[in-house]
């Protein structure tokens, strides 16, 4: 049997991360990104493997879609709507983002209003075609779109979720015209015209961009197996990504959650809070037996109602700037010092940041910062924090501890929002902390939320790219039903509609290269009490008690339920998974409990109002079974883990650091 080399490639703003799995071992590589043509960095990183082309399997996470959308670098597009609704994107939900700004935010539209073309056609809410679209209207549409020199066209008619006929008639006319088509009833057949039109239009906007990017990459890679990561925890073929590029637009933080889910399965943790803290922001999400998903997301100002991993992002990271506001309150973020000028200790900036506070408190080692590859000026951190402290009449240590306290409060609030506020008790959960800065804050955040255990995975700094190798192929399907569960023949309607989705899913997954035995299908219903506007997604199996499940979840989240009230099925959903082989992480047998071989030096730290001495350990020398009692710092090339004096830790067989409170009797 031929041996495969599996490579995850994660293109980020600064670095392109490579994670390679061959012969049972993982290799990691970082190459500076090439934003103008991201494929350059990819080719450079792959150069030594390209001779083995047929054995390479690449899963690629890209920010091309997100960047193109946020920076508006796409080509001209057009939008076809029902006549009278041409401005649907411009009116949106008729609101302003900032309640108290007299100015109102500036919006940069994806297309000029002259490219929004209204066609005479109409479908009723019940799905009846009131006005069939005429051939003349269709001809007009094609000609006008061509006149706009649009490279892609979005089609979104009122009530098309209830009947796709008119949209499909227009769609057919654009086939073989060399123009990409994004049809709303195809990509998001759900009710609410603005949200559906946004998805169709953003998708159209990204089609030319992603097609060009992937065509170019495929040509250069020449016959290498390539998969593209989506925001929904799974990957798809480049062919599909070109048709539905919007599904890749939020793929950035998805990898970390997938990697955490996989690692959780191996280490026996099924209830996990993931905490990924970077330079400017932190991403948190919940795994409760499975990865949690949401349909309510935003990219920039666009609401994107597609299923993606439910990740909450908060503007608090290592580079977040601390300041005293006009009213004398200590604020941290969301402004960030970024990589340039960076925290004061980088030698350029003078504002104190979270990283500077960590350095002052001794939770970072200047000598071992990023493996010692970078020059650090701790005296600049001291100066910046001290200056702020003088204005607050506080010592430098109290001030630094205050900065950390406020930042931790912001991050634990982000976790609260996705857990406790939804009725989920996180005291049973494990906090998985990764990203460059997470390890310095994880123990304290866990304490604040009463989470008993923290796991800092090996390779915490590049953990997200590991997720690329652990993801399945996933496609999501949905359809609006808007029927109450007491309506006649609802069971056969569900059978029939799910049947339609299943057929579609099976044939498309087949095209993705998955046979029936490697395929798993999960069914869900979006339910609400008749008359409500927000839905709860519950798993559906024939004869399952999904209604009871719905009442239970409603009770959990909103603290009341009405089992006798009428329930409405808003959408049906199907998640199709093509199961891939996962990377088998190596388990290492236990060594003794003493970590002395990894011991480097000692350093003063400040914790809970006291000065203490912490031992610094080199993570690369730690072995399974080693135990470290706080106060201690564990350093490696990408990140630092802080073990406070009221915590202890043990290295597990996968070389993860597992922290728990000292009063706990965990062995």
């Amino acid at each position, binding site marked *: 049997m031929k041996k495969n080399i599996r490579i995850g490639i994660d293109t980020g703003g600064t670095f392109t991360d490579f994670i390679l799995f061959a012969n049972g071992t993982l290799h990691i590589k970082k190459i500076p990104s090439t934003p103008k043509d991201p494929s350059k960095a990819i080719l450079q990183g792959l150069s030594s493997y390209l001779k083995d082309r047929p054995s390479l399997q690449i899963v690629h996470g890209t920010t091309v879609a997100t960047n193109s959308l946020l920076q508006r670098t796409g080509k001209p597009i057009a939008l076809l709507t029902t006549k*009278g609704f041409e401005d649907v994107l411009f009116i949106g939900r008729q609101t*302003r983002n900032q*309640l108290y700004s007299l100015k109102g935010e500036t919006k940069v539209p994806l297309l000029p209003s002259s490219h929004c073309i209204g066609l005479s056609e109409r479908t009723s809410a019940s799905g009846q075609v009131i006005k069939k679209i005429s051939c003349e209207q269709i001809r007009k549409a094609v000609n006008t779109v061509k006149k706009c020199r649009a490279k892609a066209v979005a089609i979104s008619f009122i009530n098309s979720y209830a009947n796709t006929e008119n949209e499909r008639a227009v769609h057919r006319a654009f086939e073989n015209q060399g123009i990409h088509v994004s049809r709303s009833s195809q990509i998001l057949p759900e009710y609410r015209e603005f949200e559906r039109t946004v998805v169709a239009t953003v998708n159209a906007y990204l089609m030319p961009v992603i097609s060009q990017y992937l065509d170019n990459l495929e040509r250069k890679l020449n016959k290498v197996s390539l998969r593209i990561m989506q925001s929904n925890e799974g990957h798809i073929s480049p062919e599909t990504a070109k048709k539905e590029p919007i599904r890749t637009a939020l793929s950035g933080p998805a990898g970390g959650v997938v990697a955490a889910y996989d690692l959780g399965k191996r280490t026996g943790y099924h209830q996990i809070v993931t905490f990924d803290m970077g330079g400017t922001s932190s991403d948190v999400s919940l795994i409760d037996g499975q990865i949690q998903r949401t349909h309510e997301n935003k990219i920039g100002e666009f609401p994107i109602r597609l299923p993606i991993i439910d990740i909450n992002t908060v503007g608090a990271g290592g580079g977040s700037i601390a300041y005293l506001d006009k009213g004398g309150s*200590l604020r941290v973020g969301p402004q960030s010092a970024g990589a340039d000028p960076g925290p004061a200790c980088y030698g350029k900036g003078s504002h104190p940041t979270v990283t500077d506070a960590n350095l002052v408190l001794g939770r970072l080692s200047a000598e071992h910062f990023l493996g010692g590859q970078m020059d650090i000026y701790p005296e600049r951190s001291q100066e910046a924090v001290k200056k702020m402290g003088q204005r607050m009449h506080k010592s430098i240590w109290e001030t630094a501890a205050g900065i950390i306290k406020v930042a931790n409060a912001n991050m634990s609030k982000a976790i609260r929002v996705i857990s406790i506020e939804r009725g989920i008790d996180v005291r049973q959960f494990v906090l998985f902390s990764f990203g460059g800065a997470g390890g310095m804050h994880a123990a304290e955040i866990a304490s604040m939320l009463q989470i008993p255990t923290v796991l800092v995975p090996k390779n915490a700094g590049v953990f997200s790219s590991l997720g690329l190798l652990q993801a399945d192929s996933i496609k999501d399907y949905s359809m609006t039903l808007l029927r109450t569960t007491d309506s006649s023949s609802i069971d056969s309607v569900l059978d029939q509609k799910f049947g339609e989705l299943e057929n579609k899913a099976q044939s498309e997954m087949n095209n993705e290269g998955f046979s029936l035995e490697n395929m798993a299908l999960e069914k869900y219903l979006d339910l609400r009490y008749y008359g409500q*506007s927000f839905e709860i997604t519950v798993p559906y199996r024939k004869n399952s008690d999904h209604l009871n499940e719905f009442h239970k979840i409603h009770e959990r989240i909103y603290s009341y339920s009405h089992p006798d009230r009428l329930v409405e099925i808003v959408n049906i959903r199907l998640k199709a998974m093509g199961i891939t082989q996962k990377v088998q992480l190596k388990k290492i047998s236990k060594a003794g409990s003493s970590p002395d071989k990894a011991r480097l030096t000692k350093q003063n730290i400040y914790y809970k109002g006291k000065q203490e001495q912490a031992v610094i350990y080199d993570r690369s020398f730690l072995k399974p079974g080693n135990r470290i009692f706080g106060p201690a710092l564990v350093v490696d090339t990408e990140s630092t883990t802080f073990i406070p004096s009221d915590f202890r830790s043990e290295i597990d067989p996968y070389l993860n650091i597992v922290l728990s409170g000292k009063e706990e009797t965990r062995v």
Partner: protein
Amino acid sequence: MSEFDPIELELFKNIFVSISEEMGAVLERTALSPNIKERRDFSCALFNKKGETLAQGSHIPVHLGAMPLSVQASLKFIDFEDGDMVILNHPYKGGTHLPDLTCISPVFIKGKLCFFVANRAHHSDVGGMSPGSMPLADEIYQEGLIIPPVKLVRKGKLEPDLFHFILANVRTPEERKGDLMAQIAANHKGINRMKETVAKYGSQKTFQYASLIQDYTERILRQTIDQIPDGKYEFSDYLDDDGISQDPIEIGVKIIIQSDSSIIDFSSSSEQVRGGVNANSAVTYSAVLYVFRSLVNEDIPFNTGLLRPLNIIAPQGKVVNAQFPCATAGGNVETSQRIVDVLLGALHQAVPKKIPAASSGTMNNVTFGGLNPESKRPFAYYETIGGGMGAGFDYDGLSGVHTHMTNSLNTPIEAMENYLPLQIQKYSLRPHSGGHGKSRGGDGIVREYIFLVRTQISIISERRRFAPYGLQGGMSGKKGINMLIRADGTKIKLNSKVNIKAEPGDVLHIETPGGGGYGKKE
């Protein structure tokens, strides 16, 4: 400066603000009527035991000044016990206009009343002479069911008699029931979170920072007012009419800025009127607070601290401080907007580069209802339509948005058509309706409804006679238009405020005003 720890202040600020936001999330997600769940026409807030606001979720500005008055009014009439929840809508006893139902719950800690939580939501029907309860009335009794502060929940138990009584007086009782349940759930969330906070930080510290957070807001507003040149600034503008007579109604203001405080005097405004555009003092307070809050660039909690530097003079019996039993349906939604217009007009003289031209100045309230012949059930619906935003010194106004005192969302057309016997024929921007100038005012909106069954319509709108003003040589925005087009094509021009019946096939055509322009076009 009073003693405080900048770190603790920041932590408590976040806690109080997030509690009010969590309450809002519960209300939005579990309510039944589109007006609450889709349009988010509601507000949630926390108060100290005197009924002073600590923090209010950023929801609807027009509720802002009014909510503490609700709590204070119920303190006057009610002897609170643990587990109670008071409901009210009486505009002269803590309410604003009748459709806004406010629910107030005390937070008892160890047997002592310590805080209040409250939420207010606009219900799409509270009875009265026309569906949607936003009629053209000349006394408050026609506008709907009047609820003075009464206990809907007593010691944790719903009062079934009162509940049935309320539901018997509204057109869509099922929806009201669901919405009220959501309001109760939202207060529960707030009570529990306040109790958790006290359990975690102790009552002394919580009280201390509950007071310090008000000082914080006050401090920042004072710094902001201090930047405005001292002086007297006057401005006046008009409401089209009260819907009963055709007389314009003047709103006049004199703002005196004295170092870090201000006197806002509405003495030159018209007397209260017969039709329902009267504002009670709560509405006027809300408008003043909104304008001064908007002058602050920082992100600050909305609370009683904002009131402290302001001395508001609104003599009793004026249209800005109407007395019982005046009709008030439109005071909250329309007069409040004109009060903002005159306040901004006056402040423009002091800080011309900071203050924009008039925005559309109306919420274009459309209510309708009737009997659905298919389901044999009554329907009632309320919505507002956005307009153009006024242009500023160096920016154009936004088009097709809600401005100033409201920020409620539109209801998706596909949701409306699913639930009501009508079709929307057009929903688009209104080209060239924004005032020209160096900076352009935003455009208004055109909306057309085709009614499929006989439907009773009420419209309360403004800026159909007096256009939104431009500034510094900028043109004014275009006035709004209301029209009914009968199935046979006959066009009937409608007044700014009207009650009318539509027959199947009739089309209601509304064009909303644009925003004023700023500066002479070169």
